[in-house]
């Protein structure tokens, strides 16, 4: 009991800080969630041509956003996917057209690849290769000149490039399975 009395300051401080943190949480939480969402939504116009805004869609097991035109029609979808890269997890946004037949864009949200080598996957010139690629067959990254369902790997960062292709393939395949039920909604 004596210990409890001795610790009255700790208990009082604990309650005081608990209250402060609760206050901070209620004040800032909405803004933080908005920041997280904005990061993805701001990319949608560049990932899906014709879309001027995005909207989150509930799909079990996937994080998907619908790209909407001004008149409210769906011009495409954006899938958020993650997977193991060379060094750490890579998180990407993949834009596909309304029927998920072709990829319309790629954006790297998070990566911790080797600076100067693997992190060239964030460069616009490399990501542009994905635009227009069909989704019927999986993509692969090659060192030589690419053709058809291939993209050129970043020089000196083959594993990072292959990882990104893997992430894209898995996410697009999963999404295509779900597209049918999504369109019914």
């Amino acid at each position, binding site marked *: 009991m004596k210990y409890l009395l001795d610790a009255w300051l700790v208990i009082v401080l604990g309650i005081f800080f608990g209250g402060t943190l*609760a206050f901070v949480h209620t004040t800032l939480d909405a803004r933080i969630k908005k920041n997280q969402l904005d990061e993805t939504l701001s990319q949608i116009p560049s990932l899906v041509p014709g879309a001027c805004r995005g909207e989150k869609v509930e799909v079990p097991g996937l994080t998907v956003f619908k790209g909407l035109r001004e008149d409210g029609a769906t011009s495409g979808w954006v899938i958020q996917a993650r*997977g193991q890269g*060379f*060094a750490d*997890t890579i998180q990407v946004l993949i834009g596909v057209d309304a029927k998920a037949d072709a990829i319309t864009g790629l954006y790297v949200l998070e990566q911790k690849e080797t600076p100067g080598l693997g992190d060239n996957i964030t460069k616009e010139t490399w990501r542009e290769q994905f635009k227009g690629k069909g989704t019927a067959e999986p993509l692969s990254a090659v060192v030589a000149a690419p053709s058809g369902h291939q993209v050129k790997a970043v020089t000196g960062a083959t*594993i990072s490039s292959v*990882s990104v292709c893997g992430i894209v393939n898995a996410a697009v395949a999963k999404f295509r399975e779900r597209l049918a039920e999504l369109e019914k909604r």
Partner: protein
Amino acid sequence: MDHLVSLLLLALSTAIINNFVFHYFVGICPYIGVSRRVDMAFGMGAAVTFVMGVASFLSWMVTYFVLRPGASLTAWVAGLAGADAGSMDLSILKYAVYIFVIASAVQFVEMYLRRFFPPLYKAFGVFLPLITTNCCILFACLEIGTDKRMTSGSPDFWPLDLALVYALCGGMGFALAITIMAGIREELDLCDVPKALRGPSIVLIIAGILAMAFLGFAGVDTNIGKLLGR
């Protein structure tokens, strides 16, 4: 089998490839301070690994059952009080709770050592309470409590077995790094180090060279994973 492969790759990745000291820069203060002799360094490494295991387990429990959004215990208490059970999210208290869990774990380890291994307890001296401020342990608890990297498709939370493997192998990686440095430093005592570089300076430069060596391990887990069919 697939799960076993996951555990193996995680162990390899945490202990060697993404070594806590050489890749994430945590635990540098004891790394510079305690790496004078191999026996002290190994003892510190072992103590940190043990505390990490205990602290990670406790913090995983607290996060899973109390702190995360929709946790069961919190929802039950909220239900008793009549509040909306689904919206209880205590994650703002994460940092304070983790550091208290770590401090308590260190206290328990101290009491245990003092009771059952007195000579070891005396040898550690002041370093044992200092493990509380070792970044490694808080870093491991934070990674387990927050990160969702290892779970693609499953709910965004670390499973307990992966969390324990992560913590213990992280500690072992730290032990490996500090023991290597101690071995080098024992030899360094006989060398002629320039005056300005003596002490922490030369330790950091050697750590840089060691970090370069460890960079060579990058990508090993991805390729082993490929060999094992992922």
